């Protein structure tokens, strides 16, 4: 049987082929494009949640340790044991009230166990966790110091470009300040106190009385600031002219770095509050816990 040559049954028409091609191209494009949108969004959400979660855990929780049979919140006393599992928290009991001992142990734990150990603990890949002064920011970080080293600065350097999620908590410290008596009890004799400090540090003078030697003597505080490489000391005076009145005076214009300070008080009663780790706010030494993830 000979098939007729002009029989077009069963053949695909050109419009179907073109339409099918365009449909397939569109379909493949959308299939490839949609997941990439959601991948970006999931990453964003995940980073946000991670930064918030780490900051909350560190600032609000005292942490946890267990060895299977015993457990507790004083992980700072147990983390060196091999059979102990820990989750770090820095709170001293109240939310945002941090323990200096826990913070120092967190730094030591990081140095001892390494970057990946902390990354696995909090479920993140790239992180930077630090404690900074209240007026610190990402372009000019001012870290809190303790015994000449940053109080807490762990993780990788924060990249300048790319998606970095930064979350801050305003925290305060328990037992992070030292109080010195600067009262000039003996008439005519100034009181002197020497400090070797790394600034920024908080020096707050609380003057309760300015006539301990009687009236007519005038009251003042003098701060001699010396530094390696300087020819001689720079002298600050509170007040810059005249005599003091009872009140609270802070020293905020000290140069940064390792300094030798000589503080001399004259004809007054009061005390000096010194803290290297934060600023004196509302009767507390406050700073910022900064968590960056990317």
């Amino acid at each position, binding site marked *: 049987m000979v098939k007729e040559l002009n029989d077009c049954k069963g053949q695909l028409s050109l419009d179907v082929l*073109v339409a099918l091609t*365009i449909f397939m191209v*569109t379909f493949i494009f959308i299939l490839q494009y949609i997941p990439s949108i959601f991948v970006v*969004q999931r990453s964003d959400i995940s980073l946000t949640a991670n930064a918030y979660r780490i900051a909350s855990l560190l600032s609000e929780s005292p942490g946890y340790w267990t060895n299977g049979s015993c457990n507790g919140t004083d992980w700072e006393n147990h983390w060196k044991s091999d059979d102990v599992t820990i989750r770090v928290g820095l709170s001293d009991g109240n939310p945002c009230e941090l323990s200096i001992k826990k913070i120092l142990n967190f730094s030591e734990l990081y140095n001892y166990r390494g970057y990946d150990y902390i990354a696995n603990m909090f479920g993140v890949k790239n992180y930077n966790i630090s404690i900074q002064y209240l007026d610190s920011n990402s372009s000019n970080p001012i870290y809190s110091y303790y015994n000449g080293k940053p109080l807490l600065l762990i993780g990788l350097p924060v990249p300048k470009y790319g998606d970095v999620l930064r979350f*801050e908590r*305003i925290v305060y410290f328990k037992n992070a300040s030292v109080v010195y008596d600067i009262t000039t009890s003996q008439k005519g004799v100034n009181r002197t106190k020497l400090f070797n400090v790394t600034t920024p540090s908080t020096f707050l003078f609380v003057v309760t009385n300015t006539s301990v030697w009687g009236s007519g003597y005038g009251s003042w505080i003098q701060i001699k600031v010396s530094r390696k490489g300087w020819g001689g000391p720079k002298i600050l005076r509170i007040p810059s002219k005249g005599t003091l009145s009872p009140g609270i005076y802070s020293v905020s214009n000290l140069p940064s770095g390792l300094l030798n300070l000589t503080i001399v008080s004259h004809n007054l009663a009061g005390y000096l509050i010194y803290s290297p780790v934060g600023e004196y*706010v*509302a*009767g507390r030494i406050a700073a910022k816990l900064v968590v960056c993830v990317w």
Partner: protein
Amino acid sequence: MNDKGQTFTLESIVASLLLLVVAYFLFRSTLLIAPQSAQITDVQLSQYGKDILRLFDNPKQSLLNDTLEYALEHINSSNSSTLSLINSIKKCLPKDVMFNLDVYYYNNTSILDYKITHNIPTSNTITVSRYLVIDSSNFVNNSPFVTKTAESSSYPVVLEVRLTLWRV
């Protein structure tokens, strides 16, 4: 030759292009992503507010003039006593964050608002609050938070401190 249906080719091309354009603009739109980015800013502002109110609520140091307790106890018609508190709150916040501080109190008939700051907020603000309970005997004379009838007796006064934050 049967020429019927040839225009369908053009229609399908146009329809496919339409589909492509619609799909592209729909999924390219930032509407899906923008709320997530805004939320973290709001969460951070809210957290600043909560942490600041917690920090300044320090009844053990109520003699220091930048605690909430000191500032509220010393407010009366002739003395605002809140300058140190305002300056200390400014110190805790980034420079691009502004705030208003209000105190809500009950004067035996209605709830009133005492404004400590009078900044003009933008349309997008976050408000956090904290309740303080202060003994009425701790307030200075003519305090707006103590009712005249019970001024001489000692009783707890409940104040709601509201901190409203926004970025500029």
